[in-house]
């Protein structure tokens, strides 16, 4: 296990480095500067401001300095929000995104596995067709369509749920988000994942239920429920584990739209705005944050996969 982990880390760290390098030079290749758009600065003042942030140095030197600082956990100050550092901005906003993402993936996994198993057990019957119809719709209706339509229906027309926004509620001294504000964004984020997960689980389950060891279990006279839970599900759920990495990337993409539509104070909204405003340090900080998150999740998924499937050797 340790050897496997160190091997994967040996790949993950250069990957992260590559991401940082690419993002750094792409951001700097972009025309415009963080100091141009606002008040017209005189050339002297602009020079002074640029010198203050080290932008007058050669690009390669800036890159080296950025990497050096970033490795020690210093991501610099924001160029647009003058009184905040990048870490403070990340710290202020990651909670909303985390709540959204975790709730969506949890809901999607539970509902997706349930639907997939039901569909596989009742193959080519009403439950199966219904589930597959949901799966196709979930894949074909993108988040930026479901989000406004659900707001139109449940927010504006029926008035059951708030149109947008985010509220924290304190329960026993811990801050929880208000479920009324969560339900629409989480639904929108989870729907495409439910579609994919239920398809994966259904396909895996159908294959496993035909396998010899399930037949053996049946021949032993085990009750059907136990066969499904103890024997079939364990193998059928494996594709889901390896899908968790891409799922997180999908959630990330979805959260950019969802946070914008529902006007949620999360990281996704910040990223697009910061990229457009050339807030170099904030964009870099977010790229590093998300890339590291995805790499770590992939690593966890791989390890989980190996732990669940004895056929996979961790060499």
């Amino acid at each position, binding site marked *: 296990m340790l050897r496997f982990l160190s091997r994967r880390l040996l790949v993950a760290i250069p990957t992260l480095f590559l991401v940082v390098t690419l993002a750094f030079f792409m951001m700097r290749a972009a025309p415009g500067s963080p100091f141009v758009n606002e008040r017209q600065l005189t050339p002297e003042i602009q020079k002074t401001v640029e010198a203050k942030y080290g932008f007058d140095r050669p690009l390669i030197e800036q890159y080296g300095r950025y990497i050096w600082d970033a490795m020690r956990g210093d991501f610099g100050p924001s160029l647009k929000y003058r009184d905040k550092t990048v870490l403070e901005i990340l710290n202020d906003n990651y909670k909303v995104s985390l709540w959204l993402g975790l709730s969506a993936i949890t809901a999607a996994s539970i509902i997706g596995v349930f639907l997939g198993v039901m569909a596989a057990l009742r193959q080519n019957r009403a439950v199966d067709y219904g589930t597959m119809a949901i799966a196709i719709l979930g894949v074909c209706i993108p988040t930026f369509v479901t989000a406004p339509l659900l707001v139109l229906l449940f927010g504006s027309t029926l008035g059951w749920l708030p149109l947008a926004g985010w509220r924290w509620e304190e329960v026993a001294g811990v801050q929880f988000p208000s479920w009324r504000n969560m339900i629409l964004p989480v639904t929108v984020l989870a729907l495409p994942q439910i579609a994919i997960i239920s398809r994966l689980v259904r396909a895996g389950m159908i294959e496993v239920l035909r396998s010899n060891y399930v037949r053996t279990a049946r021949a032993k006279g085990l009750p059907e429920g136990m066969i499904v839970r103890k024997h079939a599900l364990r193998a059928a759920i494996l594709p889901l584990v390896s899908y968790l990495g891409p799922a997180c990337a999908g959630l990330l993409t979805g959260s950019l739209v969802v946070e*914008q539509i529902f006007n949620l104070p999360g990281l996704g909204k910040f990223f697009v705005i910061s990229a457009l405003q050339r807030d170099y340090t904030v964009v870099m900080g977010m790229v590093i944050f998300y890339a590291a998150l995805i790499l770590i999740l992939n690593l966890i998924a791989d390890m989980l996969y190996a732990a669940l499937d004895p056929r996979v050797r961790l060499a």
Partner: protein
Amino acid sequence: MTVSTMIPGSPERAELLQQAVKGRSLWDDARARLLRNKAAVAGMIVLVLMVLLAVIGPLFTPFAYDTVTKTDVWAAPGTGGHLLGADSLGRDLLARLFAGLGVSLGIGVVATAVSLIIGVAWGATAGYLGGKVDEVMMRMVDTLYSLPFIFFVILLMVTFGKNIFLIFLAIGAVEWLTMARIVRGQTLSLKQKEFIEAARAAGLGSGAIIARHIVPNLLGPVVVYVTLTIPAIIIAESFLSFLGLGVQAPMASLGTLISNGAKDMEMAPWLLIFPSVTMVLTLMAFNFIGDGLRDALDPKDR
């Protein structure tokens, strides 16, 4: 069998021989299976309809997609000659929908072509050469796979401006990874076949074998994946447009129409509903065709 087919030289016998020789190719079989699949046929009909609307639809609308009519601001569907209503600037939604559909389909096809070229070349080379080259090339694909790509597309758009050709390139360059994986897997099994050995024995170089023998035989899985990539790219473009980074006004794509519709949905829900329905129908058509093609071409299910 009638007696006449037994007589040498009879027209009936000639016909029978003709049939026997003609045989049924893999593609004939696949076509027959595809046409039996109702969902796939419905998808093809919808898709043909969408392409026709995008190509010749604009000729029949009374307004151009960018004509601003001040008196028709937020005209409801069916009023003022606007079959589907008009937007906040009084532009005809039907005309904009046709234009947007064309842009979205166009981007889908061109960006898929980009991803197809990169993916097939990469995957076929890695799979055919094998060994260390394969390991390095596929490790690169794995690495790229684990990156948050949407960030790079956003950075690309910011870096090089909101140019429509760049949208093609950026999205196509991101979507080639899966294609490369599929093609490599197929190539690995193809290169064991006798006809490749024959080609090598005849003195053909690796490049020629890849281009003339491997790539044409990859067609089946590639076609399936292409029909599934086009909708993925349409979604990606619309996603960028939704964030304000895609197609720029007054041009429209389905994504910009939905995005604008979402902003005005309290005032004019039709601006959201019609483009959304068009988008969902188009995406479903592609997905049904893709699923149908997979069932028709997949050797596993035969």
